[in-house]
């Protein structure tokens, strides 16, 4: 069986299993909707107090917020195996993955999925619809393609961050709160236009962790506004490419980390 088919087999299996827990599904989704909604409340409070900032009004900010959170929701669903990975190192289960005839990254990615927390996704869709209805964006074919590309690229970048987090546990063994800082902190960061931040911070999230390419920059193109730092127009359209390249680099780092692995032996 080829890798891709096997992957979707596992995903479908996981979906069927999780569909059995309806109450848990509802509770988690509501909790997540509220938890992420609280973040948007912060955006609203600040705009209500100060008015539009650097030309960004509430509908436009909600479009940006939606793109980031939809992408993160997708990455969170599929990247669950990496998110939960530190436990695998800690209890020594990683040894077993090393014995099987597939790459470890592939096995980890199939281990777990999280399809039933739809709160973040739902909020993203609602906010996007509201933002699109209240701003003056004309959605032609090109802009829809850009949007799809931004979400796909964003999912890749966040997935890559989940891989980086998991890779760190080859060294730390323990699962530490700080490794959530990159993923959840990254979402928090990308929810606002990067022009809000200081230059060093903006550069880090543009050129090192390329979150800008999948959130702020495509949102800027979508809304027809300039973005800083100024980039050639072609570069502003390349979200999916940036996402895939970043994901590939994180997989290389994963391989490097894997060579450092020392079993906990239990």
């Amino acid at each position, binding site marked *: 069986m080829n890798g891709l088919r096997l992957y979707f087999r596992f995903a479908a299996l996981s979906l069927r299993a999780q569909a059995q827990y309806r*109450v848990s599904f509802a*509770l988690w989704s509501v909790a997540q909707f509220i938890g992420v909604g*609280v973040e948007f409340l912060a955006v609203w409070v600040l705009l*209500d107090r100060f008015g539009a900032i650097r030309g960004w009004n509430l509908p436009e900010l909600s479009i940006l917020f939606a793109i980031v959170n939809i992408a993160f929701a997708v990455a969170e669903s599929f990247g669950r195996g990496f998110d939960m990975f530190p436990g695998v190192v800690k209890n020594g289960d990683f040894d077993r993955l090393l014995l099987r005839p597939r790459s470890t990254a592939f096995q980890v990615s199939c281990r777990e999925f999280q399809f039933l927390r739809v709160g973040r996704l739902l909020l993203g869709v609602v906010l996007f619809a509201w933002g699109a209805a209240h701003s003056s964006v004309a959605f032609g074919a090109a802009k829809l393609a850009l949007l799809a590309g931004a979400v796909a690229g964003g999912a890749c970048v966040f997935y890559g961050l989940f891989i980086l987090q998991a890779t760190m546990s080859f060294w730390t063994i323990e699962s530490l709160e*700080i490794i959530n*800082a990159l993923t959840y902190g990254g979402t928090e960061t990308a929810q606002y236009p990067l022009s809000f931040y200081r230059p060093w*911070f903006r550069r880090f999230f543009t050129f090192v962790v390329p979150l800008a390419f999948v959130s702020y920059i495509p949102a800027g193109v979508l809304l027809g506004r300039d973005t800083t730092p100024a980039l050639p127009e072609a570069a502003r359209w390349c979200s999916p490419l940036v996402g895939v390249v970043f994901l590939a680099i994180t997989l290389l780092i994963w391989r490097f980390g894997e060579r450092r692995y020392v079993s906990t032996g239990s």
Partner: protein
Amino acid sequence: MKPYLALFRARCRVLLQYRAAAVAGFGTQLLFGLVKMMVLEAFYTHARVEAPLTLAQAISYTWLAQAFFHLLPFSANPDPEVRDMIRTGHVAYEMTRPIDLHGLWWMRALASRTAPTLMRAVPMFLVAVPFLGLQAPASLPSALAFTVTILAAALLTSAFTTIITATLMWTVSGDGIARIMPSLVSVGAGLVVPLPLFPAWAQPILSALPFRGMADEPFRLYLGDLPPSAALPVLAKQLVWTAILVLIGRAIVASGRRRLVVQGG
């Protein structure tokens, strides 16, 4: 009183061992604080309206929120050990102890709110005061007012956590409450956005809830946004709410005990 103090001290000693977790939590809070600080800077520098807090005060408020983040019942699971006890039935052992169950859980909550907070708040002050714009307390009386009210805030948040813990005795629905409450509390206490920045119409609602005394009011006493003379009313409100939450918590624990069936084996 004595067994409760002993319990509190013992729990604190256990929790103070988790130093790596504290360092990690500190790092996370630092990143989130930086993001919030820069967002506030962007809004303040481009706005032409007068805000109820100055930028320097809003930034200090944000760093206080990061330093005392752990004081609030954030984890979806307020006390994982008690949760497991309820799930496995070991809670029956707890009931045989010659002390009150609610008091026991409250002291556990108090320890798990204060000891980790201490380990995170001290480094945050050491970094944020010299480098990140956290102001020193407005005056000596302000500092005193802050110290007293933040201690009362610990009593208040742990009384609240104990209610969430007690709802776990109704496992399924209790789980839902334990997951949803933290987000609401964090807004109401001022950890998401400084409460003075909320619109004027929202202020009476925020003041009517118990959450404001968990962070916002102590922080504003620190900043001098509330004068030191406001410390007494704030403290009184915190203690009244603590008493109310303790009564509610006791009622929940009592009714949970009545319906509890411990399976043998």
